Each structure stands twice: as structure tokens, then as C-alpha cells.
């Protein structure tokens, strides 16, 4: 396995080191100064996550107000390094109760050092699973061996679990109420021309699960995807139902999914880890249902005036509604005055991002609100550079709607004791980069 990191640094936005850990001594302790000098304090920041300075490579990533920088001097595996960072952040979040920022780091120095020691060894990533690490890296105080009362709970044996047949699940879990939560979260990426033709469109989705199940349950998930359905119809030798089938690309599963069974029977069956995890990820490029259509007309009237008309049409079911819709319509940098007329929501000009920002809190299906704005520009000294017309951007969330049309057909739980389970399923579609050229 390739080296993933020689050192890891956590910096705040000013570039101060919050915490760091050197894993190998092939990089100097002051390498982070180079990062500060050559990346943070220049315009380079944010352009490329991998930079080489001197003999060292810097991989960096910003999460809330913390920069996480990995320094390596050998030929390292970049993907592995980034995956490590992402997983480490997820781990920290699960320890800190969801938040990962400068304050959280400052409040948990000791814990972070302990975790950093555990999750990477001499530059090679180790076990990053929160469930397992939580067994022996705990936030509770350490009990003194001389204390009179021995602990009631048996000390969980991490080694046994990690090396056992089901590495990700502890035995002997008991819940009073057996529940499974299933969330299908999709984000839509779109680039559309001003004429309304789709230039690029795809959906990335993931299925998140939260399990509170006793014992060692075996779960089976059925979706309306093509492979699964075809297999089923073959087995049962009856024609497929006329319902829509979805073709999933690039499917990746959590390690708990039994891949041999998936390959032979095309069913997703697994013994879930306890608590929250991401069961699978997928991508869809064809047959995407777009939730919104945007029809912009932007006219430049002379050098100092512009007229902007934007119509947004929601094309999902009338009973559904979208939340937190924000439409950002770019305007030239020299915009001086704006006036608006909107049929719903609110609009204003934001000089910091050079956009007209139109917000609609609740956006019902099958409606088409419009915005018309007049923009006045100030005359400038610079020679008239034609305005590049960046695309209109949109943000939204549509609950109970999937852009891919994916549906859960069944979720079966089988356990020796045969208890009853309650299954909850949610769908949500968000905007990824949803852009329309104008």
C-alpha cells in the first residue's frame, strides 16, 4: 500500500497551526510555512488541491473554517490521502457530536491526538471506523485501577471484533424497538443552454441507513433498478411490471454488502453495522427528471442599462413543494442600481457576489413565478470589456422526489429471533451545480 501522508496539519483560515502530527520524518516540521507562504497567502488557494513546493507535495482541503493539509515527500497515493481526510473528518464529527470546526478542534486536543495516533501508522491509513474506534478510544474518564468498584460492563474486545467474521458489527446488541431508517439523497448537476437544451446532466445519489436492530440481522434491499428487476423476472419467470426501471451507473457499496450474492443473485443483501452508515452510492446520467426549468431573457440596453426577466417553472407534482429555493442571476461588476418585480419570494442585489439573489422559501409544484429587474450600470474607465455572462445558479431541496425516479421496492429484515421491525423511507433531491446559461 502506498504512503498516504508524511504529516498532517490542521490550520485555521489565518494559517495558524491548530494541531499537527508528523508520521514520517522525511518532511521538516516547518513545511507548513511553505504552504502558508505559497498557497494560503496567494491567489492559488482553492485553485488546485494538490500543489508541489520544493520536494514536497501538499494536499489540502477546506472543511468549514479549517484547512486540513497533508504533506508527503514521496510518491504518494493522492486519492488515498483525500479519502483518508474525508474519513477522518467523518470520524471526528461522530466523536464531537456533528460539528467540525476550529472551536471543536481546540476543545478536543487530547482526543484528536489519540485518534491521529490510531488512524494512521507511519503514513499508512488504519482503521477509521467510528464504531470500532469508539470501543477503545472513549471520551469518558479513565477509571483508576485502584477504584473500589469494578466496572459492570465487560470491556469490549476490539481485537476480536476487528478480526471476526463480521468486522463491522458487534454481537449481542439489543434494542427495545427495532427500527431501520433509509434515506435516498440525490443531487442534480445540470448545465443548460439559454435555449433550453441540456448540455450536461447527471444525478449522484446515495442511500444512507440508520439501523437500530438487535442481534445479527440479515437485510435485503430491493430497488426499481434494471439489473435487479431483470434478475427477478428471470427467476420468477414472469414478465416485469410495467413500472419504470432505472439504470444505475458506478454503483459502490458499503463493505457490509455481500458482493458475491450481488453478483450471482443481483440482490443487495447485508448485515448492517450498528448506527448510521452509507449503504451505497450511484450515479445516473440518463432519464433524469429535472425539477425546475429556468427561462431567462437578459437584454443589455446601451452601456448603462440592463433588463433581466427570469421565469422559473417547477415541473414536479403539484402536491409536492421545494424548499429553500435560491436563484442567483449574475450581473456585471459595475452594477449600481437595481429595481425588482417578483411574483413570489424576495429578490435583492448582492454586490459581494455580483448577483441578483432571488429567494423563494416554499415553491409548490407546477407553478411558474417570474422576476423582472432593471439594472443600471455605472460607466467605467476601463475599455468596454464585453461581459462574459456567467450562468444562472440555482439551489433547492425537493423532499419526496427523486430526480432519478429511484424507488425502494422492499426492505426485508431477517433475524434468528424473528422480531418485527419498523422501516422508514425518505427521499430528497438537492441541487448540485444547477446552472443555466443566459
Amino acid at each position, binding site marked *: 500500500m502506498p504512503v498516504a501522508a508524511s504529516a498532517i496539519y490542521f490550520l485555521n*483560515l489565518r494559517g495558524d497551526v491548530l494541531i499537527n502530527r508528523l508520521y514520517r520524518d522525511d518532511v521538516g516540521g516547518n513545511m507548513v510555512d511553505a504552504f502558508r507562504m505559497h498557497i494560503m497567502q496567494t491567489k492559488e488557494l482553492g485553485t488546485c488541491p494538490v500543489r508541489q513546493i520544493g520536494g514536497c507535495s501538499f494536499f489540502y482541503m477546506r472543511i468549514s473554517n479549517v484547512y486540513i493539509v497533508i504533506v508527503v515527500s514521496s510518491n504518494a497515493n493522492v486519492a488515498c490521502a483525500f479519502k483518508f481526510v474525508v474519513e477522518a473528518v467523518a470520524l471526528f464529527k461522530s466523536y464531537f457530536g456533528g460539528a467540525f470546526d476550529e472551536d471543536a478542534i481546540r476543545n478536543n486536543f487530547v482526543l484528536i491526538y489519540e485518534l491521529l495516533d490510531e488512524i494512521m501508522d507511519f503514513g499508512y491509513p488504519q482503521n477509521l471506523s467510528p464504531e470500532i474506534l469508539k470501543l477503545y478510544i472513549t471520551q469518558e474518564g479513565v477509571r483508576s485501577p485502584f477504584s473500589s468498584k469494578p466496572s459492570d460492563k465487560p470491556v469490549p474486545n476490539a481485537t476480536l471484533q476487528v478480526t471476526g467474521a463480521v468486522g463491522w458489527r458487534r454481537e449481542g446488541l439489543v434494542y427495545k424497538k427495532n427500527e431501520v431508517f433509509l434515506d435516498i439523497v440525490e443531487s442534480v448537476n445540470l448545465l443548460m443552454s439559454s435555449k433550453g437544451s441540456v448540455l450536461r446532466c447527471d444525478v449522484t445519489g446515495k442511500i444512507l441507513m440508520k439501523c437500530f436492530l438487535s442481534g445479527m440481522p440479515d437485510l435485503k434491499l430491493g430497488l426499481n433498478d434494471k439489473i435487479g428487476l431483470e434478475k427477478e423476472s428471470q427467476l420468477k419467470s414472469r414478465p416485469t411490471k410495467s413500472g419504470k426501471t432505472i439504470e444505475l451507473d458506478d454503483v459502490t457499496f458499503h463493505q457490509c454488502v455481500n458482493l458475491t450474492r450481488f453478483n450471482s443473485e443481483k440482490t443487495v443483501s447485508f448485515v448492517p453495522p450498528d448506527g448510521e452508515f452509507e449503504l451505497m452510492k450511484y450515479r445516473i446520467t440518463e432519464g433524469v427528471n429535472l425539477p425546475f426549468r429556468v427561462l431567462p431573457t437578459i437584454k443589455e440596453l446601451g452601456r448603462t442599462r440592463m433588463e433581466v426577466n427570469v421565469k422559473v417553472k417547477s415541473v414536479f407534482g403539484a402536491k409536492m413543494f421545494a424548499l429553500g429555493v435560491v436563484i442567483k442571476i449574475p450581473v456585471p461588476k*459595475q452594477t*449600481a442600481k437595481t429595481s425588482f418585480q417578483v411574483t413570489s419570494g424576495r429578490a435583492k442585489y448582492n*454586490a*459581494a457576489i*455580483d448577483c441578483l439573489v432571488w429567494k423563494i422559501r416554499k415553491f409548490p409544484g407546477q407553478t411558474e413565478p417570474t422576476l423582472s429587474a432593471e439594472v443600471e450600470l*455605472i460607466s467605467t474607465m476601463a475599455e468596454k470589456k464585453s461581459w462574459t455572462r456567467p450562468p444562472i445558479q440555482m439551489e433547492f431541496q425537493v423532499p419526496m422526489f427523486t430526480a432519478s425516479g429511484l424507488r425502494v421496492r422492499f426492505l426485508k429484515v431477517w433475524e434468528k429471533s424473528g422480531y418485527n421491525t419498523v422501516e422508514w423511507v425518505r427521499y430528497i433531491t438537492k441541487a448540485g451545480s444547477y446552472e443555466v446559461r443566459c
Partner: protein
Amino acid sequence: MAMHGMRGLSVFISDIRNCQNKEQERLRVDKELGNVRTRFKNEKGLSPYEKKKYVWKMLYIYMLGYDVDFGHMEAVSLISAPKYPEKQVGYIVTSCLLNENHDFLRLAINTVRNDIIGRNETFQCLALTMVGNIGGREFAESLAPDVQKLLLSSSCRPLVRKKAALCLLRLYRKNPDVVNVDGWADRMSQLLDERDLGVLTSSMSLLVALVSNNHEAYWTCLPKCVKTLERLARNQDIPQEYTYYGIPSPWLQVKTMRALQYFPTIEDPNTRRTLFEVLQRILMGTDVVKNVNKNNASHAVLFEALALVMHLDAEKEMMSQCVALLGKFIAVREPNIRYLGLENMTRMLMVTDVQDIIKRHQAQIITSLKDPDISIRRRALDLLYGMCDVTNAKDIVEELLQYLSTADFAMREELSLKAAILAEKFAPDLSWYVDVILQLIDKAGDFISDDIWFRVVQFVTNNEDLQPYAAAKVKEYLDKPAVHETMVKVSAYILGEYSHLLGRRPGCSPKEIFSIIHEKLPTVSTTTIPILLSAYAKILMHGQPPDQELQNQIWAIFNKYESCIDAEIQQRAVEYFALSQKGAALMDILAEMPKFPERQSALIKRAEDAEVDAAEQSAIKLRAQQQTSNALVVTDQLPANGAPPPVPVGALTLVKVPSMTSDEDHSSTDLALSHENGILSKVDPQPPSADLLGDLLAPLAIEGPPGATVQSEHNSVSGLEGGPDAVDGSAIVAIEEQTNTVQPIGNIAERFHALCLKDSGVLYEDPYIQIGIKAEWRAHHGRLVLFLGNKNTAPLVSVQALILPPAHLKMELSLVPDTIPPRAQVQCPLEVVNLRPSRDVAVLDFSYKFATNMVDVKLRLPAVLNKFLQPISVSAEEFFPQWRSLSGPPLKLQEVVRGVRPMPLPEMANLLNSFRLMISPGLDPNPNNLVASTTFYSESTRAMLCLN
């Protein structure tokens, strides 16, 4: 200040300061810019207060590094506001945001002018500052007279006049043609009488700019400058606020001395004496103290004083004092001071007579060569290089050689080059030189350029007594186990040529030499292998009768390389193999290399080129005068060994081709000689008179394909031997020996060759002067007119033209004026009478002086033989009897000119025409022959008929 009460502005600034990072700052700035845009666009307009506030914000944002491309109109309009706070922000923002090319500035010109001529001092100051900062052409055109008036006005306070002087300085620097400074000399000298030091300092800055452009007009200011300096140095009447660490206004002192350096010299003995007293005082009074600021100030004054001393060519005593002072400096620990000391000592070297004094500090300078600071090491190297002469060359070069092995890689190349040059320039004896260079190659082979080892080879080749020594020496080096490739090259070459001279020494038999060289073959690159092959061939040649075993060995090697991928190696292998089988013929062909023609060392030339960017301009001029004398040291040594007349030399091998004459019947002769590629051979013409043709064809030969054997044949028959004056073989005058600092434009030789064929054209051109020529020829009389054109705006002085006529020409040059006014052309008629035929060429020795630059060129005048020819046409009946009546050499000559590019007949005919030979077509039955005829005129002989 004006900021009072602008709450919005201070809130904005504190917001910016509180930003955690750049991104937040940008967002805040963009938000503010949006706000400002909205406000400026507001129909109701802005109150002056608001306008002022937003323009300040714009400036603040601009200063943070963001683009502000609007609101200039508002800023400019504030200039015309009546109140000070608004006017101030208007002026400040305008001078920050706009540059001289902005159109908006036009709007402001009138307001600015009103402020300048107005009575309000603060407004005047604001306006002058802004104009001084922007200083565009339009401002200069419309405001310069007003500013000048302000500067001279007696009613203004010094504050305003100070600013006016600086403003004028800026306008003058940007557009010297627009600002009218006619008759300003008097006014400047008036200004220099000023008692107020502030005004005086700014006036002095102005004076420096004026004087640098035209020093002659301002000579009246000179005594005033000296007086100022005296006043400062004696510390009389200097207000407390103008002394800096006890030094009276160092800035003014430096500026005054800078101004004085623009005057060529000081004639008035009184002024000169006063000035020297002052300088003496500065030199004496400066020492190294603890305080850095005081040191900086006093050293600035001191070094300017040193520059002035050097400029004025002071007495020796003073110079030695300067050197002693610098000697103290280079002994100081502080690196900055030591650097300055070394640098200025290097500059001092340019002045004559101080070398001996500097030499006393040699040990100290050599210590500086080991300084941890590389810039000090470089300066020390420069200084050592500069101070080297015959007496201390041995020490210095040996020191450099020693230092070479420990020196920085960054410096080694420079170091080795300098050591090589010094060794060459000041070698006490040649074997020492060879030793040094071989050591150099041994120690720093990677940094030795080809020029260096070429030069050794040249020396060894040209000095017979050196050859055995060099051969023995290189053999020693080659015996070492690891040898640098450059060393292999030199050794192989020298051993190939001269190893036979070692014949009787032990271990120097051809076989042993061969094995020593051959050992290195596997380690060298393809560029070296050809040299090794040549060396083998030479060894083989010297070992006559050949040692059978050695011969077989060498042949095996040649055989091996016959299929080498490198064309050069392959060709050599094939040819040497073929040649070596010819036995005795090898002797002739592979004979020892002839001596190299003397030429300026490529190294010295390179060093001179390098110096142009290293040292200062003024220093170079002085140096150039010395350099010529130094360079002569080298050339002087060699003619003693009897340098042969120049022969063009091919790259490495040279085969002498015996001159061939073919029969009269023009049958092209096949030469049975194997021609080596890359050989440019020229037939040595036997009769001197025919050489002219060869000379004229020489420029063509350059373009000819090498080794081309196309012959253009001339039956050159001449009656020219009428004057059997047996001219010296070398009639060519060396022209470019002088190392002039002024480079001629175009090739002088080419211009001369062109003029041999034409009657008018340019003879010589350099950046200052152009010499044109126009000639008329009739019989043996000629009338030339020289056009001397000054290309500059300054006059050329001490113009001298001297004709050095050869014996056969009588030449009379009318008077040449001593000065040529700016941009003028002077005509000088020149009468020429041809007395006898000869190949000699008249030489014009032309010299002039531009500024301090003395230029001296020697130019060949195109009054050559063919100018006195007059074409006549002859009929066939006349031609053949004449032709036959001439009986053999020397009256009838045939010459084959080789190495000339093939030329079509019409072109040949044209060429002959321009030589004033008349072509008679149809005379000869063979269409490939040209027949030409002409008459030759001279005073002593009657007209002669020349047939061709």
C-alpha cells in the same frame, strides 16, 4: 485632519481590519464598491461631504490592491471644489488613480493651472505635488511656464518654490523637449545662491537633470556648486533641521557632487583648489562608526566624493589617500562596508597610477576571496582581476588556482576564465602559461570553455621551443588515472602534433604514446573522438617507417569507426585509413600544422564583452585606453618568432594544394588531388599584380561551397608589370587592430569591397558619424569627395583626417575642419594622381572625439588599381595580334582562382565591367570564355593596353 467626522469611512476601515482572512475582506470590499456605485448613480446627486467620503473609500480600496475602474469623474470634479478637505482628496485620489494618459486629466488642467497661479499657498502645493506625480505631456505643455515662474518668484515662500523645483524636474525628465530651458543657466546659478537649504536641495536635483543633458550651457553654475559644497563641508550656516547625525545635509552634498561629475573638468584654478580642499576634508573626516544610519549617510557622501575625485583626475597624493581609506574599509568586518570598499577600489583601478598603491592591499583582498558572502567574493575577484599586471600576475594567478578547488560552483566558470585571461595577458614566460592552463583544466575541467584550450594549442603551435615542453607536460597529466575530457582533447592534440619531439625520452615511443591516448578513448564523448583519431593518424605518420604492430592497431581502430553513426568520426576514419595506406604521401598531407595567424585572443574579447555590463560606462572608457596597451603585450611577443603572412586556416586539418596552371586551351583540368571537405583553399598567385583580382574575389569566396572545384578561369594577361616595383607581399594594412569602444555599423571590409566596384557609397559608419565617398576618375587622375556627416545632436570635435598614401599615389586632401557641427555634413575633396601601378592601398587615418570618447579608425580608400583603368573596345583583328605578341610570363599570365562559387557568365561580365574592363563579345570562339580589354593610366608610364 480631513478625516474627522467621516463615520462611514472609519467604520468601513475597521470592518476591513477585522476581517479574518482575504476572502472576507474581498466580500466586504465588493459590498462597499456596490454601495459606492449605487451612491454615485443616485439621481439626486451627492453632497460634497458624501462625495468626499466615498472617494476616500475608493482610494482606500484601491490601496488595498483592488481594481477601481469607476468614479474617476467624481474624483477629478473634487479638484475644483472650493474647500480644502475636498480639494485635497481630489488631488490625492487623482494622482493615485490616474496616470498621464487618462483623458479625464484634460478636464482638470484648467483648475490645476488656476490653483498654481492663484495666491493660496496650500492649493499651490497640492497642485504642484499632483503635477509632479503625474507629469504628463499635456501638463508639461500647459503648466511648465507657470511652474518656472513660480520657482523664480521672490514673493513665494520656500515651501512652494521647493515643490515647484521638484515639479519642474519631473516635467523636464519626462518631456525634455517640451519644457523650455533656454537661458536657464543664469537663473539656475541665481537659484544656487539660495540660502534656504530645502529650495537649494530641490534646485540641485533640477540642476543634475539639466546638466546631464547639456553641461556646456551651465558652466556658470560650477563655481556655485563648489561654493555650496564648501558651505556644507565647513558646516557654516546650516540650520539644525538639515543636519543628519551631525552631517550637514548629506543629500545635498551627494547631489552637488553628482552635478559636478557632469562637467568634464574644472579649469579655474581657484575653484579647483577650493573643491579639492573640500574633498580632502570629506576624505579625512569619514570614518566607520557604530551607528548604522550615520555610517550610511557619511559613506554615501564619501563614495560620491571618491567618484568625483576619480572623475577629476586628482593629484596622486589624493588618490593614494583614497586608496588608503578604501584599504581601511576592506579590513572592516562589516560585510556591507567591505563590499563597498572592494567595489570602489575596482573603480579606482580605472584611474591611472593607483595600481601600485592598491597592490599594497593585495593580501587583504585575497583574504576577501574566502569571505562567506558570495557578493564580496565576486567583488574581490573582480578587483584581483583588475589589479593584476606583470609584476604580481604569478602570485595572483596561483592564488586563484588554489582558490579554484574550494570555490563555489557558481563562481568557478568566471574564476577559471579570469585566471586564463590573466595568465595569457601577463605571462612572464610561456611555459608558465602552459602550466597554468593545464592546471586549470585539471582542476576545473567542466568550467573551461573551448576558447581557453584553443588558445593553448595556438600558443604551442606558434612557439617551437614550447612544443617539447608542452608535450611532456600533457603526457604527465594523461598518465593520471582520471582525466577530464577537455584535458584529453588538449593532450591528444598536442601529443599528436609534437609527441615525436619527445622521441628519445623514456616511455615516449610512438607506441607508448598511442596506448596512453587510446586508454582514454572509451571514456570520451563523440566530440573528442575525432581529435583522438587525428592524433592517431599523426602518430602513425611520425613513426616512419611504420611500426607494423602499431600500424595494424591503428588501422583496426580506423576500421572500427568507418561505420560509426557520427558523420564526422566516420569521415575521418575513412580518410585517415585511406591516407595512411599511401605511405610516404602521408608525410606531405599530414604535415605539422602551420602557425596560426595572430589575432586578438578570443578570451580577452570575451572578457571585454562581459565587462560592458559589469562595470560602469565611464569606467570602461578609461579602461579601453589601458586595454590596448595590455593587449599589445601578447601580440608583441609573437612576431619575434617570425609570424608568417596570414593564411586562411581550415578548422583542424589543412592540406596545402600546390598551385596549378592549366593550359591555354581552357580545358578544365581534373585535379587528381583528394580534396578534404571543409577546406577553403586559395591559390597563391605568383605575380603580385594579379593578386588584386584575387583580393576582389575574396568576398565572393566566402560564400562559395567549401571544396567546390569549379574554376572560373581567366587568362589574365597583364601589361601591368610595367612598374616592376616588387611590392611587399603583405600589402594589406591591418585595420581593425584597434579596440575602439565605438563599434562601427556594418562591416568595413565589405564596404571597402563594394566601393572598389562602385564610385560612390558609404565608406564607414558608426553611431556618431557616417563617412560617404564619391569619386570621379579620369585617366590617371582621380577626384574623391569625402562626406563627413555628424549623426548626433552634439558636435564632434578634434576631427582629424590623415592620408597615408602608398608610394605610387600622390594624394592631396583639402583641409578638414576641426569640428563638425551637430547634424551637419562636411565635404572634403581629395585629389589623387596615379604615378605607378601598384597594389598598395591608400589609408585614411580618421579620428574624432565625441564627448570624452576618442575614436580612431583606419580606413582603406577605394583608390585601387582598377579605378585607373579605362575600358576600350578592341576588334578581333586588333586583339589577336596583340595577344600573340605578348610572350609568356610575366607578360602573359594565367591564373586559376579556386574556391569561388560558380558564377554565370553574365554576372562575370558585369563584374569585369565594374572593374572597368570592356568585354568584347564574340571575340573568342569558345562561348565560355570572356575577353575583356582596358587601358591603364599612370603618370610615369604611358597608357598601357591591358587585355584580358
